[in-house]
């Protein structure tokens, strides 16, 4: 992953629910109480890059045993409800509405949490949706000549719900299929 990778930056900018374990003076504006102390136990949505740093760094006081500043929770996009929906039917979930970089977020959080089931569900839905994506990628534009447009309402719905990884896969699939068609067409002209 490159330092300048815009997708990596956007993935890191996604918010994660973070619970503070300590009182922090004058950080209250994070919780809509400017100028006050941020109480311990407050839940704030913070971007992933920040909350990750806070979660892995420990307070270094001599008296108390080292304790992390914050605890992280799984964001709503990766909650049990979404996982159950993905388990039931991966193709009907609108991943883009949940998180723009859904899989990227999943990948980053799997580094922080050891959730075997989450990993299984994500891999399985990636696999199943990828097959669907390649079908759409090879058929998109075929109905255009007949005035059918991109396709039926169902496929438009599905394609709108793709997250960034899936969009990239779709694009690459489509490009390779198109290159093939162009080559075959060129053969005709010769």
């Amino acid at each position, binding site marked *: 992953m*490159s330092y*300048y990778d815009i997708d990596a930056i956007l993935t890191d900018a996604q918010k994660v629910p973070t619970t503070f374990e300590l009182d922090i003076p004058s950080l209250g504006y994070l919780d809509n109480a400017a100028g006050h102390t941020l109480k311990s136990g407050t839940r704030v949505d913070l971007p992933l890059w920040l909350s990750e740093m806070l979660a892995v760094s420990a307070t270094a006081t001599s008296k108390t045993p080292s304790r992390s500043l914050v605890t992280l929770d799984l964001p709503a996009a990766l909650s049990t409800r979404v996982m159950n929906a993905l388990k039931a039917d991966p193709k009907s979930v609108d991943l883009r509405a949940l998180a723009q970089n859904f*899989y990227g977020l*999943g*990948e980053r959080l*799997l*580094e922080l949490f*050891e959730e*075997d089931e989450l*990993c299984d569900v*994500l*891999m399985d839905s*990636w*696999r*199943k949706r*990828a*097959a669907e994506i*390649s*079908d759409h*990628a*090879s058929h998109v534009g075929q109905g255009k000549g007949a005035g059918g447009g991109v396709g039926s309402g169902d496929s438009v719905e599905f394609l709108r719900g793709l997250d960034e*990884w899936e969009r*990239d*896969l779709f694009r*690459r*699939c489509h*490009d*390779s*299929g198109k*290159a*093939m068609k*162009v*080559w*075959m067409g*060129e*053969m*005709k002209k*010769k």
Partner: protein
Amino acid sequence: MALPLPPGLTPAEVAFLCEMEMVTVVPRQRLESLALIGGPTQPLRPPHRAPLPLWLALLLKRQRRANILPPPWLLPSSLERILKQETEIDPQGFSSPPPHPYPIRAVPSHTDTISPPFLPSSTADAPPDYLPYHWLELGEILLEACSDDLQEPGRVRTLLRDLREVRMAKMRGSTKDLQGGGVSSLNGVGAMEVSEGRAFIVGVMDGLRKLGSSRETARREREEDEGAGGGGVSDEDEEMGFE
């Protein structure tokens, strides 16, 4: 920064490589031996067949100096048998590539390692009922350049289309039961199919690898902890697997 070109070869590049394949021609004019980089060509004496690289054969064909003999696997009957093999006999796997023309013996010889582009898999004496490495592009090129030399070009065209559809569907399906790494065998898949399917398969595998990477590191660390007291052999295996 990333290269502007995607990994792999474009269809035009694959077709270019395919033009190195040897085909059999029936010359109409005499032509002395040409000193090509790949070795001298056989002198052409009109009624006798001669093997030539595809690009030269196409050139002569265009100038009406030679006719190209289609390879036996490009005949409609052979293509039909292959299609049957793909759809009915073995609907999961790909039909096997042509057998190695030189017998593999216990004593290693330099012919053991010759691989498809350098094997005459598309000459008139190639084995029928096997699709060689460059089947799709060679079929397309011959259909366009010399459809008058083929038997029933219309049927050959439809059969090639059908074969391509069937095999692409198999290739896409092969990712469904993919676990972390490794696809089900892609033995027998042609160069053009690889170039078309690469983006998808590599993309899916890359996604799976990224999603599974944290679990993989955890597993590796655990094994390292357990294997710290054990033998060093398993450690070496891990190193190999990681590359």
